[in-house]
């Protein structure tokens, strides 16, 4: 293998591996901007990985499987909003409970429906969309122009979310709810409705991310298969300074870490895998401590709001 092939392969797998994290991170970003911190991203992704596989298995269509996962994730988002917005429960504790629930319910459902059988949905996998001509460009051709459709969707969502948050009236309302809910309320913005909407849409994106992880990348469900990707998404939102483009770059950087870590043994490197996988988290801590410019979270993030 020559250097160009390695580089091209690395870039291709980087974008592919970044996709589930990016989708979830965008979902988290939307929630965060409305003032909701969802530690439960990992759990929601994990439930979605299973629902997507089960949905694909029963409907014989990977897109329907993904829709099932997004629907379930959206319901979980509504549930999250009910507890944290309407009942003003502690968002962190609810998030932790969702993670615990995700581990438990995905395993229980898997054993219930499939027992100990290994279910592969490879035959229904997403078809690659290759753009003739462009895909033959060295290094970036395969990475940018011969991917599964979900990869394109995830990266196209970056400008969409950016436009929505910063260029539309609803986006402005959403951000104002996350910064100063009292003032937003006075201006006639329905704080609860905004947060419910953000939670549902945000969690649906996490569902899409989880679905792509199982049906897109690995073609199957394994217990605890998200392997901290939900937490990487959480880190990416902070490391990307709560901006869609920043979040995208952060996920690409973190996914590169994963891709390199996977590549290491095959090129006979002695750098331990676990040290490489630590990097995203360490970088985030460094970012939080303010060593790479100031990271300002939405002012009302994590705080319950009481109307009236």
């Amino acid at each position: 293998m020559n250097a160009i092939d390695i580089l091209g392969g690395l870039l291709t797998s980087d974008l592919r591996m970044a996709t589930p994290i990016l989708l979830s991170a965008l979902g988290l970003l939307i929630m965060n901007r409305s003032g909701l911190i969802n530690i439960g991203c990992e759990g929601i992704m994990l439930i979605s990985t299973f629902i997507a596989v089960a949905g694909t298995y029963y409907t014989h269509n990977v897109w329907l499987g993904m829709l099932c996962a997004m629907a379930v994730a959206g319901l979980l988002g509504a549930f999250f909003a009910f507890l944290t917005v309407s009942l003003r429960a502690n968002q962190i504790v609810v998030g932790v409970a969702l993670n615990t629930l995700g581990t438990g319910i995905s395993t229980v459902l898997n054993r219930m429906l499939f027992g100990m059988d290994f279910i592969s949905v490879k035959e229904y996998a997403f078809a690659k969309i290759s753009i003739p001509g462009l895909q033959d460009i060295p290094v970036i051709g395969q990475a940018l122009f011969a991917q599964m459709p979900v990869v394109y969707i995830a990266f196209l969502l970056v400008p969409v979310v950016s436009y929505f948050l910063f260029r539309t009236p609803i986006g402005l309302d959403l951000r104002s709810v996350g910064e100063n809910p009292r003032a937003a309320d006075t201006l006639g913005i329905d704080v609860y409705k905004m947060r419910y909407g953000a939670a549902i849409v945000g969690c649906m994106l996490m569902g899409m991310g989880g679905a792509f992880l199982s049906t897109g990348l690995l073609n199957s469900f394994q217990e605890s298969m998200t392997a901290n990707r939900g937490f990487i998404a959480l880190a990416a939102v902070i490391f990307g300074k709560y901006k869609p483009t920043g979040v995208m770059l952060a996920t690409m950087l973190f996914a590169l870490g994963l891709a390199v870590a996977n590549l290491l043994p095959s090129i006979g490197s002695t750098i331990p895998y676990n040290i490489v996988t630590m990097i995203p988290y360490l970088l985030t801590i460094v970012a939080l401590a303010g060593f790479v410019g100031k990271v300002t979270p939405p002012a009302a993030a994590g705080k319950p709001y009481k109307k009236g």
Partner: protein
Amino acid sequence: MQKFDRIKFRSNMSSAARQISVSLMAVVVALIISMLVIAAMGVDPMKAMSKMLSGALGSKNAIAETLVKMTPLLFTGMSYALANRCGLTNIGMEGQLYVGALTATIAGVYIPGLPMIVHLPLTMLAGFLGGAIWGGIVGVLKVRFGANEIITTVMLNTVATNLVQYMVNGPITEPPGDDAQSSPLLDSASLPIILKGTRAHLGILIALLFVVLFYLFLWKSKKGYEIRVSGQNPNAAIYSGINTGRNIILVMLIAGGLSGLAGATEVMGVQGRLFPSVSPGYGFDGIAVSLIGANTAPGIVAGAFLFGILRAGGNSMQRATGVPVAIISVIQAVVILMVVATGFLREGGFKRKKAAKRQNVQEGGVSQ
């Protein structure tokens, strides 16, 4: 005859009694929901539950298993509760546990030639310090740099699990390094068995001793009073001259240390060496334990006992009925969700707003 006054009755009912009823309700609802799930799997829920109970309490061995599972839960429950009393959300218990297990293993494997009376406490201390460092980092980052402890603890959890995996595969792997595990701890660093023929080890007594210390520290010492004030009303604490920054670091050091002890007792009493998956989530269980126990010493013992039963009985339930142990996680999640949801009712709920104002009850400092 005096008319029954609901409002007065409610205000007279002590907050402790109300807390207990809320916790009990949460547990009952969680059990009902999980029994429905079990029934949906085509298993008789009563049979599953009785298998679980007999597996946790039905024999000497079963009770010993429950005590074994309780031990780390007591430590992580105290860890979460202590930080929570100071107004902090420590969800880094899992990571602190891993680092505590790692440092205890290093002390327990690589310091030979000591008598048990010295080596045992030294290994415990190493575990405490390992966890304390991991928690202390969080405290320092918060006080010095304003870094949110929730995010830093989440990040450090993953760093810690990776660190342990790296260590058992590399620097402290058992020669010749075929398996991902450390060498066994020396006998002088292993916690003695307290019930013959079972796995129940001294750790449970140490954990209970720490519960007493936890109570004395928080409710009988000046520092503990300061910490509780800082948690309930940070501004008041600052105005009255309490150094909240220093208290935050202190609390995170101790909270981390307590979780570290959970890891230490696991390797010293149960597993005998360090495995990459030293904890099946005891760190996160600590949150549920502390929530059920409303951050009080007796409550934490009760919560740890409950989840100890679930963990110990879950395995025999799986063997007897095929219901996967993972159902325990579901029960636990529902318990947590029920407690936080009913916390809203405790605060006053939808209809009780006026009543709550009139009764003006001093809540017992329950902050979630």
